[in-house]
């Protein structure tokens, strides 16, 4: 299969998908959340089983016991945390990378808080039990228990990662710093491992718990190595991705074309994205998520970006022949998930890039597709010429909703959407754009009573 578009109708592919993948987005998220919660219950059962009721008496032991539970739970969730960002294909299919990033943020805040609570509660509990001061108890716990010094350093690193990722701080830290500090998470995991087995009440004398816990770490490590390291390298060797050209698409918009061997075998769908890692001297270490801005055709992939950050603006100067490490394809934002035949796409800003690809693919496959493109002024309508051409050639419809927001607050109102697209209720709707825009559109669609399962959104806030 060298050309994906004509030979592979998304609806057929969807029918072949496994049952779980065909559930609605909230249901799929529910399944994964339930699996994570089940694991957490297992972890708590481990503690329950190992703890004699008599040992939980009085304030000291209560605090210590609370510290053990938070420690076990926090560690479990930190392991889940790295798995969420492990680029695991089935997690991407079930939830989508955009939601995974949201989960990652929330779970990160929670798990690190739990581990801080773990340290505080254990020391506090010991201090109460031994009638010792908090400071001297801290000193004795950190310095005299096996492997506690390493674990303390590990917790410090985790807290550092958490602080640097907090929204207020993250804005002031450059990507480079944030990225490398994030890698400390792995060091923190390694440093804190030994103290669990050698000091942890639930592992020191419980060989079975050690096996289970070790298996958990081992499984996640294997998944990470497989999907973050081996898969990309194998793909690089097999497909030999290389930049074949760049093109200006109007003010501030640049497209990059990447070619390679047997691209059809990657089974990329329009609407999906890759992590692009251009192997130049300065850029090789960073991988950025960009959607395909043209339907995959088996010969090349294209991404189109607005010149925003340092990385984005440097793309225009990429030389043909530059090697690229592509990771992916990722994302659930494809027509594979549609419920019916007729489609409506509503986009704004850079959100137009995946929609541009899907519009092309859908127009080719079914023809019954309408695109609404919102922009404050006509200059910002990137890729307009291409959209017009596709619409004309395939008999699809494009509406441009142009004008400043304060002059046209009703462009995305339920009434206006209904007037533009009479049968909006019967359509699968794909929404992609800035957060505020997506919210407005979704609220209008709810007012119009478009079924939730028919609304597909991609969050562009990674």
């Amino acid at each position, binding site marked *: 299969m060298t050309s994906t578009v004509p030979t592979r109708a998304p609806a057929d592919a969807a029918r072949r998908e496994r049952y779980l993948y065909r559930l609605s987005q909230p249901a799929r998220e529910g399944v994964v959340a339930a699996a994570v919660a089940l694991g957490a219950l297992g972890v*708590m059962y481990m503690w329950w089983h190992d703890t004699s009721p*008599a*040992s*939980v008496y009085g304030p000291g032991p209560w605090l210590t016991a609370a510290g053990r*539970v938070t420690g076990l739970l926090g560690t479990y969730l930190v392991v889940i945390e790295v798995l969420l960002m492990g680029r695991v294909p089935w997690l991407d299919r079930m939830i989508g990378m955009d939601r995974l990033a949201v989960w990652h943020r929330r779970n990160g*805040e929670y798990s690190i808080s739990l581990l801080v609570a773990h340290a505080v509660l254990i020391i506090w509990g010991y201090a109460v039990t031994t*009638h010792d001061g908090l400071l001297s108890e801290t000193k004795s716990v950190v310095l*005299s228990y096996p492997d506690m010094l390493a674990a303390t350093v590990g917790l410090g690193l985790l807290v550092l990662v958490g602080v640097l990722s907090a929204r207020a701080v993250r804005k002031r830290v450059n990507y480079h710093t944030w990225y490398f500090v994030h890698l400390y998470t792995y060091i923190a995991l390694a440093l804190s491992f030994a103290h669990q087995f050698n000091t942890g009440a639930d592992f*020191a004398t419980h060989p079975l718990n050690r096996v289970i816990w070790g298996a958990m770490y081992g499984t996640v490590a294997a998944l990470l190595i497989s999907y973050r390291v081996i898969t990309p390298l194998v793909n690089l060797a097999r497909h030999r991705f290389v930049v074949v050209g760049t093109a200006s698409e109007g003010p501030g918009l640049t497209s990059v074309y990447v070619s390679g061997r047997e691209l059809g075998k990657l089974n990329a769908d329009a609407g999906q994205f890759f992590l692009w890692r251009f192997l130049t001297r300065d850029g090789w270490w960073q991988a950025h998520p960009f959607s395909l801005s043209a339907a995959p055709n088996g010969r090349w992939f294209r991404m189109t970006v607005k010149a925003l950050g340092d990385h984005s603006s440097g793309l225009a100067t990429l030389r043909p022949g530059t090697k690229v490490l592509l990771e992916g394809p990722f994302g659930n934002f494809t027509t594979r998930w549609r419920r019916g035949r007729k489609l409506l796409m509503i986009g704004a800003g850079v959100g137009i890039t995946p929609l541009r690809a899907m519009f092309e693919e859908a127009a080719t496959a079914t023809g019954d597709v309408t695109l609404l493109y919102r922009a404050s002024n006509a200059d910002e309508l990137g890729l307009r010429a291409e959209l017009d051409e596709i619409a004309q050639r395939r008999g699809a419809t494009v509406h441009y909703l142009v004008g400043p927001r304060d002059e046209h607050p009703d462009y995305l109102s339920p009434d206006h959407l209904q007037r533009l697209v009479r049968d909006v209720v019967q359509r699968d709707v794909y929404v992609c754009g800035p957060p505020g825009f997506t919210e407005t559109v979704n609220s209008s669609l709810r007012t119009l009573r478009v079924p939730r399962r028919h609304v597909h959104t991609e969050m562009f806030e990674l």
Partner: protein
Amino acid sequence: MRRAVIATAGTVVGLVVLLGYRSEGAVKGEKVDTGSGTSTNASTGTGTGTRTGTGTGTTVPRAASSSSGHTYTGQDVFYRYGDIEVAVTLSGSRIVTVTVPQNDASSPYSQTVNSAAVPILVKEAVAAQGVSFDVVSGATYTSDAFAQSLQSALDKASQ
């Protein structure tokens, strides 16, 4: 912010419920008197002194026996409510681990008291790096016997 409040409140409530249920047995029947500092049987008076069996001999080590260092086992000390034997692992002259290979109690109540007190004693012994720690209130005899056995282990080590 709201999410943080909910998560915190949920976690605290969950912990309290979980721990509350787990400690139920201790609260209902066999509460350990942590405040009085007197002998354990004074407060509840169940099963005093009568030797009902050999007990389970639960081992309650504070930490896994470390791969480094030497382990010395102290003498099996018999006391009023059972017998206890303490082993210590030293790295140089530092106490790394304290374990309790033998811990039999004469009554279920004493077992309950011991299972609560011994982990604390183990921890205290490691923290104090020796026998100069406080007795666990409510488990005076166990504390003394524990200290005696530990001392004999340390004596062995220094020979």
